[in-house]
């Protein structure tokens, strides 16, 4: 039986004591990666928002509404509650009331 995640986990771990290059080289790689990440986060990503109008508008909406675009499931998005109440109650009360009056 093919096992999903864990079987590949242990053998594929880049093993610190054995894998080349040596400790200073690996620390340098970490510093470079962190530097690149910081550059993307503090310079590149905000710059794209500032320069691209659709992205800028989108950013404004996200900040105003407080929506979490990265939320995983509907239960992580409070706006879903608003949507559900709006739609359920519309069908439950307003559509039924309209049907009754006909």
């Amino acid at each position, binding site marked *: *039986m*093919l*096992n*999903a*995640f*864990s*079987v*590949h*986990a*242990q*053998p*594929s*771990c*880049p093993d*610190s*004591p054995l*894998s080349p290059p040596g400790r200073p080289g*690996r620390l340098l*790689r*970490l510093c470079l*990666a962190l530097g690149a*990440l910081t550059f993307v*986060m503090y310079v590149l*990503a905000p710059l794209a*928002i500032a320069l691209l109008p*659709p*992205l800028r*508008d*989108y*950013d404004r*909406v*996200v*900040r105003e*509404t407080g929506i979490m*675009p*990265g939320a*995983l*499931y*509907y*239960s*992580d*998005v409070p*706006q*879903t509650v*608003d*949507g*559900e*109440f*709006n*739609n*359920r*109650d*519309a*069908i*439950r*009360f*307003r*559509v*039924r009331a309209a049907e*009754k009056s006909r």
Partner: protein
Amino acid sequence: MSQEQQDIVVDDGRARWSDLWKKEDYWAIWLGFVVILFGYIVFIAQGPASFRETVDKSNRIMAAESAKNEVFKSIEYLTAQDAKKKLRSRDSAAGKSVSWFLTRPGRWSSNPADSFFVSGDTVAAANEKAKPAAAEAKGKLEAALKEATAAQQAADGAGLKNAELNADAEAKIAAWRKAQGASSKAAGAASKKPVNLIPSLLSALAVGIVFFGIGICCMGENVVKFALGFVGVFVAAVLAFMMGAQSTMHTYGIGSEAWAIIIGMLVANTVGTPNFIKPALKTEFYIKTGLVCLGAEVLMDKIVAIGGPGIFVAWVVTPIVLVLTFIFGQKVLKMPSKTLNITISADMSVCGTSAAIATAAACRAKKEELTLALGLSLVFTAIMMVAMPAFIKAVGMPDVLGGAWIGGTVDSTGAVAAAGAFISDTAMYVAATIKMIQNVLIGVTAFGVALYWTTKVEPEEMGMTGRKVSIMEIWNRFPKFVIGFLTASFFCSLVSGGLGTDMSNALVGQGLVGGLTSPMRSWCFALAFTSIGLSTNFRELAVYFKGGKPVLLYVCGQTFNLILTLAMAYVMFYKVFPEVTAKI
């Protein structure tokens, strides 16, 4: 023994009673059930009795207002609805205590420390600065309410027969709602409290070690080594939450799951994963426990939230797209990995990351395949959540249609709500509701994929083609955590259905789920994705990109999804159920 052979676990396949306390599939179920049962006692069994009274009163007002005014939603109707929405059993003292243990790092912009600690002096200064804006917003709200009340009275006075007065009242009520939102936000900014997450994070670490440690101990592994390693995984998961809360990353929709993989891979591929952490890299254990907790959020009564149109757009189109994309991947693109094919298909057609996790676990996909599916989803979601609302606005598509289109196609639920909000409140309501209905499909998808894999795919791979597979063989291979996932969903759906929509929202949605299973699931997934990152080599990941077939599969499947969803949404919302469209 070759590396390939070492990577395959040979299981004799026979189920034993001892599996119940020796296998992680079962431990994921037991731990998930403990969480749900605890949540039931705290949030539902002890739920405030006054909730029912408020719900009944609100519903009476809303029914009377709907009978009186068929043209627009009156101020009284909306106020009564707000009263129902405010009911949350997680706001009880017990609920707040539970939330304290599950708190995750908060929002920050430039200083990461703000995510964990904000001093009393800083908060006091910020509150003082925000007070004038809050007072101004409050004044505007009062003025907007006065105007809305006057406009509504004028429309009522004309017997709701004057179209101009009706439109004016509707617009003024909408302006009052907007002022309500602005005032609430301004009030929130002026009443912030000091933050110190260190005690709660340390407590969460201790609870996590005990919680997962019980399973680890019963499965016969070394608890001390696990506990030491868990500290490392936990710290990386906390950093992932922190990064996901950064304001710019937040806008791009790069959440904690993606950051957990990035941080893990960064460590693993530069300085290397420290050996002491390795005993705690229990990806499957965390992910399956998280999925059983997620089962509590898969509430079947949600599928009727927007009536017939929602069911057709989310529950008819989605399975068609899922199955056809999988077939396209196998027959046309000739994807070498069926597990990667179905994981990307489910990710793209159902609900993004959460569907990818459930499907990958159900078909036993490799961790690199799940990582790849997540990466694709992240990139395309970021593009679609900006491009789709811009296109919808540019062509003048109706809000309901645009919302339904976004809800049925954009992967991540958060991105759906954000894209919908970009158009209008109505579009956001429809988009979020369609996505919520689609989210519920995750249970059926996981079960269907697990069943298909155990009855068709795995027997074929094992050279058993043409031989009848017995029920016991299917049972032996079936991923047991899926049963826990579905049982959790079935139990919580029964509770939710029994309570009725409004009480279910107060006690289940804003209690058991919002107060416990949802944050618990987030922690489990953050730990799982950190483990994936810490055990993934960049070079191994590149193999799965070969030929660009995963990207092609995603693009072709999503194109088909966009066409079919738009067609179905138009037919359902404008031809078959126009009365629903007119009233939402």
